[in-house]
């Protein structure tokens, strides 16, 4: 009786087979215990890297304090902040058409006389714009309708008050276009809370030059002087922790050129920009 499995030439799959080395090619010696130890060492090293450097830099999570020392926590905080802002922007963009539509509807339902009044306000604004030199349409009709929608429900009560309020609110954006200092066409001022940023642009034509001066009012801000529009982008200058700057800006192409400021300090900062020269419009939020 022969056992057909007892053929020495063909070992079973699980049995160790004699390794036939091809010339010039070596195998890598490794034992099971050594492999397990190496794996554990690798996991430990990965954990150390993760906790000390990666989590602070990515998420601002810094249980050890090393991230704070190396400045990586700040980087992570900034990343998280930017992500949150991007998400908020996306949500605002998604919600805006609905809200604006609802506001207009509420206005129509509640008080037709307010609509007539708004038309009158629009006409007044156009007249003011013509005098000041800013193009009409600077104030979006929807933006004008929105503040009016709040007083609308109580329009049946004292009719004059809400309308006056609407006029005041609608007129509020206008003063930015009024020249405040001799020699400058525009002056705008913003107070930025810690971590906040703002973007102010000049609508310029290619090759035209505008003068500017801005100051962080005794504090410092990070800034990025850049231009964009029509698929073009240019970065003129960037700076961190700058108290103020003055100079001229020559547009590399026709579109918007301006500043992005961000307050990276712990306290609110007031940024004031003065601009003059060859630009058509100062676009500020």
């Amino acid at each position: 009786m022969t056992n057909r499995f007892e053929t020495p030439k063909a070992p079973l799959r699980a049995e160790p087979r004699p390794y036939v080395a091809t010339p010039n090619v070596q195998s890598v010696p490794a034992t099971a215990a050594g492999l397990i130890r190496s794996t554990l060492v690798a996991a430990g090293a990965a954990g150390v890297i993760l906790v000390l450097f990666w989590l602070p830099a990515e998420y601002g999570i810094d249980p050890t304090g090393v991230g704070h020392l190396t400045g990586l926590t700040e980087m992570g905080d900034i990343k998280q902040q930017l992500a949150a802002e991007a998400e908020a922007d996306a949500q605002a963009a998604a919600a805006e058409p609905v809200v604006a539509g609802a506001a207009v509807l509420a206005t129509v339902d509640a008080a037709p006389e307010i609509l007539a009044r708004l038309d009158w306000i629009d006409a007044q604004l156009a007249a003011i714009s013509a005098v000041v030199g800013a193009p009409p349409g600077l104030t979006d009709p929807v933006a004008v309708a929105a503040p009016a929608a709040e007083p609308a429900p109580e329009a049946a009560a004292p009719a004059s008050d809400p309308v006056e309020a609407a006029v005041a609110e609608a007129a509020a954006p206008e003063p930015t276009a009024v020249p405040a200092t001799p020699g400058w066409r525009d002056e705008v001022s913003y107070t930025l809370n810690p971590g906040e940023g703002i973007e102010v642009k000049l609508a310029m034509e290619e090759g035209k030059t505008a003068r500017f001066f801005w100051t962080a009012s005794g504090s410092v801000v990070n800034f990025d002087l850049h231009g964009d529009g029509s698929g073009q982008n240019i970065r003129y200058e960037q700076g961190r922790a700058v108290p103020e700057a003055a100079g001229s800006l020559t547009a590399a192409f026709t579109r918007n050129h301006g500043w992005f400021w961000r307050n990276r300090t712990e306290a609110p900062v007031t940024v004031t920009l003065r601009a003059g020269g060859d630009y058509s419009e100062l676009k500020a939020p």
Partner: protein
Amino acid sequence: MALALILTAMTQWRARPAFARQAYAANVLMLVAGFAMMGLQITGYFVA
């Protein structure tokens, strides 16, 4: 082309006397990277 270059490089590497040590170290490095990225993803899942 790329594969041919890689094959050549790998074959020459395997012929070197230090190959075993280097290969082992490279594997451990890959393990480190893998664990670190895994941790990052898991943390990201819990943060979000």
